[in-house]
């Protein structure tokens, strides 16, 4: 796959929850191996859009989804699509870290274990590799069997990232992944995103404009369930074409 083919391609996506029309006629291409940020005011539908990419949206009560989301050219809403396979392609980093109720080691090993029967030796290598990739190895290597809940919240979030990377995804989805973190941990996570885009396509939902500016290559501005503007970060932030985007960037719409 070349860098010019979109990794995720959304076509005419409409999402209703109950009788609310949450996402309206969304069509967008998410580029390969770039960081794309979805910004917009609270309740505009940005998290819903993100969750439509790995079909976590399916678990919402009274949800109705129409349209297509193509990942690597395959429609994930096709009734025959293998949902666990789709989700395996995407690591999710949620707002607050949710480590699984098990040890640090088992958290990272969870994904590889459900997808196969890795040998203990291979698993050890993999766990170390992912913990190193998220800069956690030095901090936890002596207490891998300790409960993951004993880690600080910033460490937990990096553990969740390591856990996601361990299933070998292509895409990382971040849902305001730093909003519960202190500034130092936020910085670590942001730098990880920039590092990781070498190998992964990254989509982030954020309400922090400075964060979008720091880490992303492209920005999607969503307002009231519609995509208002999409473009390269600098262009969208410094020279927005749409009036709504201008107002949001200047802080008139919250």
């Amino acid at each position, binding site marked *: 796959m070349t860098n010019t083919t979109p990794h995720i391609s959304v076509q005419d996506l409409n999402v209703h929850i109950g009788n609310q029309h949450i996402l309206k006629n969304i069509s967008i291409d998410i580029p390969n191996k770039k960081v794309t940020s979805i910004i917009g005011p609270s309740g505009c539908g940005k998290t819903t859009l993100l969750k439509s990419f790995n079909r976590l949206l399916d678990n919402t009560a009274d949800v109705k989804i129409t349209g297509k989301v193509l990942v690597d050219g395959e429609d994930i809403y096709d009734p025959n699509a293998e949902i666990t396979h789709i989700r395996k392609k995407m690591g999710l980093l949620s707002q607050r870290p949710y480590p699984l109720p098990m040890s640090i080691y088992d958290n990272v090993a*969870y994904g590889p274990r459900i997808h196969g029967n890795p040998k203990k030796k291979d698993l050890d290598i993999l766990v170390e590799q992912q913990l190193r990739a998220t800069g956690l190895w030095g901090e936890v290597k002596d207490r891998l069997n300790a409960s993951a809940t004993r880690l600080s919240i910033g460490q937990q979030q990096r553990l969740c990232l390591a856990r996601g990377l361990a299933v070998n995804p292509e895409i990382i989805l971040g849902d305001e992944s730093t909003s519960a973190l202190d500034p130092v941990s936020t910085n670590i996570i942001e730098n990880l995103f920039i590092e990781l885009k070498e190998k992964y396509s990254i989509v982030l939902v954020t309400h922090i404009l400075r964060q979008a500016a720091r880490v992303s290559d492209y920005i999607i501005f969503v307002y009231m369930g519609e995509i208002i503007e999409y473009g390269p970060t600098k262009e969208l932030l410094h020279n927005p074409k749409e009036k709504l985007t201008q107002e949001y960037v200047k802080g008139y719409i919250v």
Partner: protein
Amino acid sequence: MIKRKIEEYFFKTLMILATIIVVGSFFLIVGTIFSKGLPYMTLDMVTKVPGGGFYIGKEGGVLNAIIGSLYIAGGATVLGLIISIPVAIYINMYLNNKNFISNLLRTVFDVLFGIPSIVYGAFGFLIMVYFGLRASLLGGTIAVTLLIIPVLVRTLDEVIRTVPGELRDAALSLGATRWEAAKVVLRQIRPGIYTAILLAFGRGIGDVASVLFTAGFSDNIPTSLHEPAATLPLAIFFQLGSPIAEVQGRAYASALILTIVVLIITLLSELLIKKFSKHKIG
């Protein structure tokens, strides 16, 4: 200003009084059982079945009822869990995007929860008559299972609902199937499962009406599922109805035994809850 202070004082006093009433009645009940039962509490009570003259105050004990109650309440709790855990998981993990059906099911279990135990007893009895079964350990266990399933399902349901949806999503987004995600949720609620077991076992072992027709009563320890079985609540009921002081005293001793059994189960489950809360998030 003064009005606010009076209000604060009034409600604080009310809360303290209410707490005193509850704790006070606890000690009153336990105290009564101890003072009336302890004099009749002999080793024979817990090691022997009723002898020939037991019901006129002679030799024997209530071992038949202790064993019968443990069999029935224990068996019903195990059977109940086998049925309730899948139901609770199904409602929460599979029907979670269909609010109408899951809420309907919750209402059904709330109604079942509220049905008096005598109705379960009568229903169990009808089924037994239909199949030509006699009052037996099996019949009693089934009736008590029916009785405690709503307790188990609703308790487990409430516990599962306290698990953040994001934990389930975390497992799902790693490519887990819904059942694999459910297993993660079950790990998280393991302490809650012990609470459910405690409540269900407590209700099962203390109930008279559901076992009255279905388990029957016997002075022997049942050796098969088809033999009738005694239970502690029924033993207390029969002994209390006796005009003989000795037998009445033994009723309190039996009540003491029942209380101690429940106490042991409570302590045991609290121990397990502590032990398995290690990895629990949040």
